[in-house]
Structures are given as structure tokens and as C-alpha cells.
């Protein structure tokens, strides 16, 4: 099957996700789709699978125009997909999830024997150890991802679209997946593969298309002709320019936040670190390492079961987020801007001033618009926030400007410690640099930042020191030299060796690494 996408355009309120994208997948090829976060990869896949309707452009299947109104139509046309988000029914069994929309039946009733037999067949291609009779909600994240892949395979479709299928599975399972993909390719299937992992992409794909800001930056180039540097510059549009932090020595600064032997209700063990005044302390790890959960524990949102946390030298027991903010001046910027960071329907003014309402309220509890404006407007100027007015609904701003709003509210709140989780996900490269510079600047003003990021260059650009987390434990702590190659190698070695490896490297455990 050959799938052609012609001049597709798609906008969401405030964002142009795709802008004139043309793209072709041929039978018997694996076609990599690359691009930064927010480049439009997932949007393109959702259009091909009938989940979104394009604003313009068209779709051709084997040269014939196709008009999909829903995923049903795409499935019927022989297109199947693994989407980036998890899409399983928690209380259904693995088998049922795999065959959900076409459960086999006998005498009109679902034939569960066949459900499990058939599901088994596809699951076996990747991981025979998963029981098809288990309810999905009992699986690990990686297992769920495998079920998603098996589900897509089970359609035996002519076109298979995989949106970051390897993000949360292990190398072993990824290898099994690649073997299957190669076989399907040999059978003449057309496969689209989205991944941020350059090594994977070069290893498995035949051609690569790069999207940048919703436009095609490299169109179906043979993989052999693309060097790593060419792919990266296609993705970001130029040589990487990074924010300059400059050398700084913060070793004799006072400690503002310390953890000693902290364990949490979610399974963190023996977490220990020190954040100093004005420092950016990086917290690196693969997705699912437990960093976000640690941040939540630090702000009183997850229960700490053992150990001690100190703020400005005094032991604290933070029971709630408001307490973290008001009493201890700790703020947290969520990795999930839309769900947890912002109130999309409310204006910029409210989103920024929310942290200070109580402070600026008069004795009667009244908050004046003028008072809000006096706080919000200077911040908007300082952060170069692009918005028609502070009355604009935040949902209508671009991702980068939304992120600036989340930062602005903490500047307004006057926090001393800011935990920033994945600050630049879905943010374009230019804004990304701006946000990096902003983070650096606030630390110069004396704010201390705990920076969670899965973006290695970002981490190496920004952090003064880097903690490495794996499986809910810290496995390493490194002084950042801000030199990319050696730093990334050291970080990855901590991640791959895990706690044991790290212990061998640093006989006295993570704490001793820095000393």
C-alpha cells in the first residue's frame, strides 16, 4: 500500500501544527519521521488515522483520494497506528484490548477462546511473557506499550504508523519489535516510525522525513545520505545555538534544600542531595525513572515515608502544596502544562496572579485588578511574553508563551526554590533558548532551581550539577563540565549500569560522588 499526503495544513487555537506538509510512504519501506517536540509528527499521524480532520490538503491511498471521518474509516482502509499516548481500556484484559473493535464472535457472542488465541499470536512476536488474560491496569508501563504495539500489528494493515513506540520499552523488546518491522517490510508493508532516538532511526529506517515547525525540512531522504549533523540541523533549522550560562562556582553557597535518606510512598529509596542558593541542580533520567514523583514528594504532594528534608537548614515536614509555597517558598512547574500547569480557560492575568492573590488581597479579602496588573505586566515585559493582552485566555497562547506564563507566576510568588519539570517539551528551539536564558537569569537573582529534564543537551547547558535517577533511586551525581561529549557519556554510563554499576564507580554511593 502506498500512502500519500499532499499539502496538509492543520491549526489548533493559537498553533499552526502543520503547514503544507507533503509526504509519501511506499510499500516495503520503513520511513522515519523526525522533528523536535511539537514539530507536528503526532498531528500528522492523527490526520492520517482519521482522528483529526485536516484544514486543507488531502490524503491518497494507492493514488486514490481518501477522506477519513474517524479512526474507523482509516482502519477499514488498512491503516493502523500506535499512538503516542497510551490508549488501552484499563479494566479489559490484554486480549480484549488487542482485538477491541473486532472481537471474534460465535453465534453472535464474543468467542473469548479465539480472542486469547489470536491476541497471543501477535503478542508472541514481541513478548511472550505477557498473559492475554491479565487486566491491562495491572501491567507495567512497558508492558502496556507492548500491548499497544501488538494491537497495531494485529490489524495486519498495509500501513503501520508507530509514534514513539520505543519510548518506554527496554532495548530487548525494542530489538524484537525491529525484527518484526523488518519482516513486515519484507512482506511489502509500509511503515512509519517516529522516534527521538537517532541511533534507532539510523539502524532501522530506509528514508527519513524531518518536520520543523509544521513544515517539511527534509523530504524522504535516503537514510544513508543523512549524517547525524544533517538530521539535527534539519530539525532545529540551524546549527544549535545554546544559552550561555558561563562558568560559576557555587560550592560555598549555603544549602537551601537538602534531602537525606528520603523514601516515599511511591517507592523512592534513600534519596540524598543538596541544592544550593542560586544553583541549577539537574535531575536526569529516562522517562519513568521517578523524577516527577520525587518533585511531588518534595512539595508535599506525595507522602515521604522516611528520611529528612531540610529547607534553609531547618528540618521540615511539608504536608501540602500550599504549605510548600507559602511557608517554604518552594514552587513546582509541572511537566504537563495543559493538565496541571495552567488554567487554560482563564486569562494570563489570573494565571500569573494566582500565586499572589492572598498576599495582595486587602483586609476585606478584596483583590484589585489594578494590583494584579501591577504585578503581572512587568513580568510579561520582562519575560517577553507574546500575548495581545493580559486578558487573553492562556489556552490561546503558543506553547512557549504558555511556559513563560508558568514561570512568571513563580516569579510573582517570589519563590526561593523552583522545581522545573521538563520546561521545554513541545517548545520550539528559539523559545527554548529564551527559556534557558530565563532560568539562568532567575538563578542569578538568587532563586535555586531543581531542573528535571530528559533532554540531554538542555541538561548539560543549564545544570551546575547533575543527579542521575534510575528506578526511583539516585545512581549518580556529577559536576557539570558543560562539555557535551564527555558529560553525556558519563550520564549514560550511570543510567546503563544502574545502581550497582554506579556503586562500583563511586564506592561511597551517590553522595560521595560530590565531595
Amino acid at each position, binding site marked *: 500500500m502506498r500512502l500519500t499526503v499532499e499539502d496538509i495544513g492543520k*491549526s489548533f*487555537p*493559537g498553533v499552526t501544527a502543520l503547514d503544507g506538509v507533503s509526504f509519501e510512504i511506499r510499500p516495503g519501506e520503513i520511513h522515519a519521521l523526525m522533528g523536535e517536540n511539537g514539530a507536528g509528527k503526532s498531528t500528522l499521524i492523527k490526520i492520517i488515522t482519521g482522528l483529526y480532520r485536516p484544514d486543507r490538503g488531502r490524503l491518497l491511498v494507492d493514488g486514490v483520494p481518501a477522506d477519513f471521518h474517524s479512526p474507523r474509516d482509516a482502519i477499514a482502509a488498512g491503516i493502523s497506528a500506535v499512538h503516542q499516548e497510551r490508549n488501552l481500556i484499563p479494566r479489559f484484559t490484554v486480549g480484549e484490548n488487542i482485538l477491541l473493535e473486532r472481537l471474534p464472535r460465535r453465534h453472535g457472542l464474543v468467542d473469548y477462546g479465539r480472542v486469547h488465541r489470536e491476541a497471543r499470536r501477535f503478542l508472541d512476536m514481541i513478548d511472550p511473557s505477557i498473559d492475554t488474560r491479565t487486566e491491562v491496569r495491572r501491567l507495567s508501563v512497558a508492558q502496556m506499550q507492548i500491548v499497544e504495539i501488538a494491537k497495531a500489528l494485529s490489524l495486519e494493515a498495509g500501513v503501520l504508523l508507530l509514534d514513539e513506540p520505543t519510548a518506554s520499552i527496554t532495548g530487548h523488546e525494542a530489538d524484537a519489535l525491529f525484527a518484526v518491522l523488518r519482516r513486515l517490510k519484507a512482506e511489502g508493508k509500509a511503515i512509519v516510525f517516529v522516534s527521538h532516538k537517532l541511533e534507532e532511526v539510523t539502524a532501522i529506517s530506509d528514508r527519513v522525513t524531518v518536520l520543523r515547525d509544521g513544515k517539511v525540512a527534509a523530504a524522504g531522504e535516503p537514510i544513508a545520505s543523512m549524517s547525524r549533523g544533517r538530521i539535527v540541523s534539519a530539525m532545529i533549522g540551524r546549527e544549535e545555538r545554546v544559552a550561555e550560562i558561563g562558568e560559576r562556582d557555587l560550592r560555598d553557597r549555603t544549602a537551601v534544600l537538602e534531602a537525606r535518606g528520603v523514601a516515599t510512598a511511591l517507592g523512592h529509596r534513600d534519596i540524598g542531595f543538596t541544592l544550593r542558593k542560586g544553583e541549577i541542580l539537574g535531575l536526569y533520567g529516562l522517562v519513568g525513572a521517578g523524577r516527577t514523583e520525587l518533585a511531588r514528594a518534595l*512539595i508535599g*504532594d506525595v507522602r515521604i515515608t522516611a528520611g529528612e528534608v531540610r529547607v534553609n537548614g531547618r528540618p521540615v515536614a511539608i504536608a*501540602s*502544596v*500550599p504549605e*510548600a*509555597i*507559602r511557608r517554604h517558598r518552594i*514552587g*513546582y512547574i*509541572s511537566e504537563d502544562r495543559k*493538565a*496541571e*500547569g*495552567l*488554567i*487554560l*480557560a*482563564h*486569562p494570563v492575568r*489570573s494565571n500569573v496572579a*494566582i*500565586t499572589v*492573590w*492572598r498576599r*495582595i*488581597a486587602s483586609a*476585606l*479579602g*478584596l*483583590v*484589585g485588578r489594578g494590583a494584579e496588573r501591577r504585578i503581572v*505586566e512587568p513580568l*510579561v*515585559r520582562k519575560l*517577553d*511574553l*507574546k*500575548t*495581545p*493582552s*493580559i*486578558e*487573553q485566555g492562556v489556552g*490561546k497562547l503558543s506553547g512557549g508563551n504558555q511556559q513563560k506564563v508558568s514561570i512568571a*507566576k513563580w516569579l510573582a*510568588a517570589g519563590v526561593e526554590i523552583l522545581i522545573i519539570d521538563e520546561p521545554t517539551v513541545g517548545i520550539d528551539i528559539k523559545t527554548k533558548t529564551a527559556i534557558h536564558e530565563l532560568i539562568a537569569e532567575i538563578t542569578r537573582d538568587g532563586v535555586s532551581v531543581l531542573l528535571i529534564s530528559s533532554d540531554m543537551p538542555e541538561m548539560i547547558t543549564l545544570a551546575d550539577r547533575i543527579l542521575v535517577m534510575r528506578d526511583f533511586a539516585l545512581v549518580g551525581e556529577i559536576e557539570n563540565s558543560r562539555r557535551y561529549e564527555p558529560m553525556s557519556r558519563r550520564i549514560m554510563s550511570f543510567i546503563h549500569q544502574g545502581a550497582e554499576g554506579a556503586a562500583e564507580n563511586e564506592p561511597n554511593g551517590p553522595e560521595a560522588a560530590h565531595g
Partner: protein
Amino acid sequence: MTVADANEAPARRGAFLAESGNLIGLAAIVLIFWVVLTSLRPGFISNFNLFTLSRSLAIDIVIGFSTMVVLATGGMNLAIGSIGVCAVMAAGFLMQGLGLPPLVAFAAALALGAALGWLNGFAIVRSGVNSFIITLASASLYLGAMLILSKAVTFNELPAAVADFGKLRFGGFVSPLLIIALAIGAALIVLFRFTALGREILAAGANPRAAELSGVPVGRVVIIAHTLSGALAGAAGLMLVARLGAAMPSIGQDWLLPSFLAPVLGGTLLSGGAVSVIGTMLGALLVTTIRSGLLVMQVGNFWLQLFLGVILLAAVMLDRYRGKVAERRSLGRR
């Protein structure tokens, strides 16, 4: 471009127009009804009818407010009728049974309403169970407790001042109850527009996670909203006591529909985070007008329910449509 004063004015005007567009539309519908009804039945604007209308309107407005403040948090309160009647019976008992003066009894009854609302909020926040279920259960619980304690006996020997108050008229047809309802409305406008608490309620309703992570004590705010809802339900009940001159156990059992009609017609979102106080008042006015209008027109009072249902449907669908058009237009501008 960054914030520039030149840009701010039109944008703010835009937001204002969107909100007032709904209100003006609602007011226009009400006006049309009044013109038509008055020309067909001149008695519609007789002092007698205006007075009785202003009294029912007052009560419908406060019932609507009671639901509105919980809708603001994205929750519901199905127990307002039960809370209302508990406050009513408490006031009756305090005045007739214990001989307390009306003001004291009313204050205590309001406090009881607030306490029952607080209990709802507390149960919701503590258990993490949906407010629909909690208040469904507590509605039955409160009503049951009231019936058990009161044996459903009406208190009908209240101090004359109570009924006299209900009968007062200003300017020939304005009930003081309406003035109270408007005063409550003004207080709620101040709450939601100008106080930290009100803003926090809306933030918690629009996105509880984000609000929590921004330092809003969401649990406490939700509890406060329910407490306020309980107090307003109590207030609505007490207004009925003044109107009827008696405290009876049958009050409140048909509040569910009007309590949702007024705020929803007025543009309050069910999903939380946005309220319109004036909209709720206009919504209540529309409902009261239609109800009285249909009766006066002898459309047959048995068909009234049908019309109310259809009007609610039409109104929410219209609102939906308006929202879509507005969205499309704002996209087009880009």
C-alpha cells in the same frame, strides 16, 4: 508583540462582549416575553402579579445561586432542597418551640445550612468521591434526619413579624425578598470578581491540579464553596418561610430543576471555573417569566413542565452554538 496598551483595550472589550453578548441575548428574550405577555394579558403587569412574580423570582434566584457556587468548583449539590428544608424546620422550631426571636432563629438556621453544606464539602474532599454521589446520599440523609426529628409537623405559629415581612411591598410591587436576593447577588459578584477566595474557587473549578500546584488549597476552597451553597440554600428556605408565614417540611423538594436552570441558562459552566452572577439572575427571571406567562396564557398548566424542559434544552444548545461561532471567529482572525 508584547503587551501594549493599544492592544489591551480591544481584547478586553472582546472578552467583555462575549460575556455580555450572552447576557444581552438573555435579557432580550425576557423583554420580548414581557412585551408579548403584557399586550396579550394586561393583568400580567398588575401590581398583584408583579408582586407575586418578584417574590418567586427572589427565591428562584437564591436557589440558583446555591447551585452556581458549587458549579463554580466543577461540582454539584443535589442536596440543596434537603439543606433548605432543614434550615426551614430549624428556624420554625427555634421560633415556635423555643420562642427565640426571628433574627436569632434565622441566623441559627443559616448557620445550620452552612454546616450541612460544610459537611458535604468535607465528605467530598476527604473521600475523594464525586460530589454527585455524596450529595445524592446526603440529600436523602438530611431529609430523613429532618423528618425523623420533626415528625414532619408544620410550624405555623411563628411570630407575626415573619409573615409581615413576606407581605411587605415597596413601590407597590417590589418584595423585600427580591431586594435581599439582589443584595446576595451583589455580594457574590464582589466575591467572584474581587476577592482572593472567589478567584481561588474559580481556579480550583477550572483546573484543580493546576490550582493546587499554584498554592491554592483546593480542598479547603471546595469545602468553602459547599458551605456557601448550604448557607444560600438555607437562605432560600428562609425566604420561603417569610413568604408562607410558616415552616413546613414539604419545602425544597422541587428545587432541583430550577436550581440548575438559572445558572445554566445564565452561562455558568457545568465543568467549573466560570460563573455569571447576573446571568443566573436573568436565567431565573426567564424561568419565572415563562412559568407565570404560560399559566397566564392558559397554555395549560399541565404542559408547563414540557415547556420548561424544552426551553432549557434550547438555551443550552444555543449557548453551545454561540460558543462554537465565537471560537471559529477568533480562529479566523488569526
